[in-house]
């Protein structure tokens, strides 16, 4: 769920902002060991296509796999090629919508893709991805119960979870006295912090917050409930400083605002830049987002793709990836391998009871609901048009037209002589 605002991301990269979290030296030593002693349980399984010379196309988010770029880390794709003899063509995308457009367009053929929750349910509905043969993915057993059979793929027939995270509130602990446990969504509506609040510039995430506060489902399609959520957001608008997405990195790090809801994985990066900041997951519940591996319906090498997915679920590989990406892992063995301080970090890993009971994943909304939501969102954002705009605009139009007419009239008079 790295919703990268593509253009901006390019700029951010050029500003050499560090996306992803830095690893402690202790960790990389550990990587060193694991790189040398990569243990694969059932090596025979991976040898089937040894001499067939086939290749698979993997399409993933940018910066979303351990690629061996840092010293001592594992190059996952190279290890896979070494083990199986299958060549991996690895390419990146920046948004779910980009991936969707590629698959829908049908121009390119991919064997493994890693979309987010709501996009998976949309693709299932539109038959863009195909059911997996779980017999070929024995390592599915490592996926923790909390992340199985989620609403976007109720029987977990199409996807194997890769990473997850929650949405919470990044706040300035120096300026805000509310204790961490008591921070809840309503703090974003608190008049005391007028003009110190940043908000999601994306209707789905913004509505989700209002829906949690109102006690609705995150996936509600009821127009009345959506309307109520929009009203709630409208109420908040006067105290919001700005609606932002990736700008949150800079703004929070520079102390431009005190409060901002954002994704846990990215929050870790921001927290590193400014030590006054902290991250709280509101107790009344939140959105759980999951990125999961799927096989497009148009895949040419389904079995090899399943092998790749299984490989990604090998404990050592899953650990190397999660250690690199710094999102949270749904993989039980990889989780056990993480350092104690990472495991007990409440930003990445809120306790599992909370996850099971208080969080909800997005599923795809119907076209009607999407349209209603985006209309309400536009309305909310453009509401405070100054009442003088229209009259002043009309008056200036009339003035201009009058001026033109008078000029023409004068000119014609002159022409007569």
């Amino acid at each position, binding site marked *: 769920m790295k919703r990268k605002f593509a253009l901006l991301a390019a700029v951010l990269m050029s500003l050499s902002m560090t996306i992803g979290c830095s690893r402690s030296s202790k960790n990389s030593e550990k990587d060193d060991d694991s790189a040398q002693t990569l243990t694969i349980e059932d090596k025979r399984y991976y040898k089937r296509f040894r001499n067939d010379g086939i290749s698979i196309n993997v399409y993933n988010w940018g910066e979303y796999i351990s690629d061996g770029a840092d010293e001592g880390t594992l190059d996952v794709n190279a290890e896979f090629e070494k083990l199986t003899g299958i060549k991996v063509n690895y390419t990146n995308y920046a948004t779910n919508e980009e991936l969707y457009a590629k698959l829908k367009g049908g121009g390119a053929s991919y064997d493994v893709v890693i979309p987010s929750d709501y996009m998976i349910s949309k693709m299932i509905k539109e038959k863009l991805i195909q059911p997996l043969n779980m017999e070929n993915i024995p390592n599915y057993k490592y996926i923790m119960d909390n992340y199985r059979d989620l609403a976007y793929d109720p029987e977990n027939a199409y996807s194997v979870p890769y990473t997850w995270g929650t949405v919470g509130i990044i706040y300035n602990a120096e300026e805000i006295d509310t204790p961490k446990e008591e921070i809840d969504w309503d703090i974003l509506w608190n008049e005391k912090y007028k003009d110190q609040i940043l908000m999601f510039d994306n209707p789905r995430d913004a509505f989700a917050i209002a829906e949690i506060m109102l006690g609705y489902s995150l996936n509600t399609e009821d127009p009345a409930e959506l309307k109520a959520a929009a009203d709630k957001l409208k109420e908040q608008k006067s105290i919001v400083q700005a*609606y932002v997405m990736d700008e949150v990195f800079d703004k929070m790090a520079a102390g431009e605002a005190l409060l901002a809801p954002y994704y846990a994985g990215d929050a870790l990066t921001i927290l590193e830049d400014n030590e006054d900041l902290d991250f709280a997951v509101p107790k009344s519940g939140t959105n759980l987002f999951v990125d999961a591996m799927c096989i497009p319906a148009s895949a040419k090498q389904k079995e090899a793709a399943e092998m790749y997915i299984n490989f990604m679920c090998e404990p050592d590989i899953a650990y190397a990836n999660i250690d690199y990406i710094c999102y949270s892992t749904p993989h039980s063995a990889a989780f056990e391998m993480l350092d104690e301080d990472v495991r007990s970090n409440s930003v990445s890993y809120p306790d599992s009871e909370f996850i099971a009971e208080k969080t909800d994943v997005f599923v795809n909304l119907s076209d009607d609901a999407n349209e209603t939501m985006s209309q309400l969102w536009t309305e909310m*954002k453009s509401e405070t048009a100054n009442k003088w705009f229209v009259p002043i605009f009309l008056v200036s139009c009339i003035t201009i037209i009058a001026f033109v007419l008078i000029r023409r009239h004068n000119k014609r008079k002159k022409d007569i002589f």
Partner: protein
Amino acid sequence: MKLKYFSAPYLVWMIVFILVPLLMIAYFAFTTDGGDFTIRNVSDVGQYANIFVRSIWLSLIATAICLVIAYPVAFILSRMDKHKQGTMLMIVMLPMWMNFLLRTYAWMTLLGNNGIINNMLGAVGLGPVRMINTSGAVVLGMVYNYLPFMILPLYSVMVKIDKSLLEAASDLGCSSASTLFRVVVPLTMPGITSGITMVFVPAISTFIISRMLGGGSNLLIGDLIEMQFLGNAYNPHLGAAISLVLMVIILVIMTVMNQFDPDDQVLI
């Protein structure tokens, strides 16, 4: 006659990359997902009248400010020594060598509540001024980014005004104010109109400036169109309809502008 053939590459370019996309926008604007004819998309645009008025208003202000700033600059430039002119022109162009996004991004840091300007104000005891996330910041972004587009056409017209014309005007008893309004302004009218076009059109359809400097709380047309294509509600038909309406508005405004374009101004 042969010369005509040299225009063939541009003709092909125009058809493939300008005419066909325009027709496609029109097609999308008037069809549903299934390809049936509908005027619903276009009539839906009406609900966003607010946003249209706001965008037009802000870009008119930005254009006016650009004109006021650029006119004297261009005039001074055009009256300089020839070799100095080249250097000065380069300085005008210099910011444009940098990426547009990067420049706008820099303004975010300058205008922020804890930004450089507010820090300096704070140092001399002036309270923080709220600059970013306002309409003013959006106008500033537009002026900053599009100012060279106003200076250049004005300069290229002004540089052609013969010095002797100005001397003749003062010889014949014109005050400097009336020289300006009766000689220079009429002669530079083509530069003014093309400058206004070159600033107004990109300003009205910009989307990134309002998002970065306006805090995203006040949409402009560009944002609205972008949302239809890259937002959650993927609705290219409405997006195309909004673009179409925007084009018509620009066309109308340009027609009005052309009234000022004086074919016969030389006579005055």
